[in-house]
């Protein structure tokens, strides 16, 4: 079936009719959120592309929920006819993250997958160009994972020029140099450092 004037509500109904396990909600105007089981996602995406006319893959994103030991994959599809975006969300196990590639549906998905593979270590089966994309000679934990500590890494690997320490709160430094008095409400902020 072909929906020319698909609105948020008809879209939700349509999806729920076909995918019973999907949690569908209208996030706001022009945004429909769909939560799906991992194995249904490729099916749903090709259904959305071919039958609901969501032709444009706008975005593939990934969030690391380290507390729940899961990665969340998010796919955004846009329909030119209906001016509507659906956000498809699914969870992948963090221990052995694997998903299949979407590059047969959208060629540009390959790029997103390459980046997510590099930054999170999720393996997209069927994508032949996984591997070095942005980083070069990177060893160790994929950097965008929550358990990778960038401050520690940069302190260990790069020479840090001294003199930055006192510049973390400009206000304090200025008052030290010029004798300006820091007001009470500002003192409260200056205790909190970025590094904590």
């Amino acid at each position, binding site marked *: 079936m072909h929906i020319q004037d698909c609105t948020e509500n008809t879209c939700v109904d349509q999806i729920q009719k076909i995918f019973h396990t999907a949690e569908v909600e209208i996030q706001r105007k022009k945004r429909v959120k769909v939560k799906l089981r991992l194995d249904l996602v490729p099916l749903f995406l090709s259904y959305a592309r071919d039958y609901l006319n969501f032709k444009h893959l706008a975005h593939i994103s990934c969030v690391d929920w380290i507390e729940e030991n899961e990665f969340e994959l998010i796919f955004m599809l846009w329909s030119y006819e209906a001016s509507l975006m659906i956000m498809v969300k699914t969870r992948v196990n963090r221990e052995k993250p694997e998903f299949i590639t979407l590059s047969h549906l959208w060629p540009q998905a390959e790029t997103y997958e390459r980046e997510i593979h590099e930054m999170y270590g999720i393996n997209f089966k069927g994508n032949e160009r996984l591997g070095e994309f942005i*980083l*070069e000679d990177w*060893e160790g934990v994929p950097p965008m994972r929550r358990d990778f500590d960038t401050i520690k890494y*940069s302190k260990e690997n*790069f*020479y*840090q020029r001294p*003199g930055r320490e006192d510049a973390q709160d400009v206000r304090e430094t200025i008052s030290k140099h010029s004798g300006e008095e820091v007001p009470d409400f500002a003192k409260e902020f200056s205790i909190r450092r970025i590094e904590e």
Partner: protein
Amino acid sequence: MTYDKNSKKIVDIIQNFARKHSLWILAYGTGCGAIEVPPTMTSRYDGERFGLRGAATPRQADVLLITGYLATKTLKRVIRTYEQMQSPKYVIGFGSCTINGGMYWDSYNTIKALDRYLPVDVYINGCMPRPESVISGFIKLQQLISEGKANGAEKYQKNLEWYRENQKKVIHNWKMPDYNW
């Protein structure tokens, strides 16, 4: 014919004068600072008044303008590029992030102090430096050249080991890409 000390000096003066007034900048936008280079070179600020000019390849260039932070991947190419340039050559560190990392102080992929890896003659601070400060940086470089103090390339050659050691600390795989020229 006797060797005349003065004549050599005159040659030096002429050479330094020519070098000072003809600085060819390598067209290599290594970072986001590259956005302020076009305004510097075009009609509003017109860097050509001071003899600044773009050069297409490292062989022809005199000045390597490091426009901002350097990712380690770029650092590798920049070192390669710098070593392809013909001396006398100068390096200008452009923007705060070349001096102490700037706002990228905790990033895992950018170097924090450029002068550990390449000999920097002049730093221009700011994020971004305005075209005026870029020009003033170049005028400072011209001053250093005419005083004979812009000798970063010599420093680099003399202390190559120190520089190499620092470079290799950051670039894990020291295999340069296979250029065949």
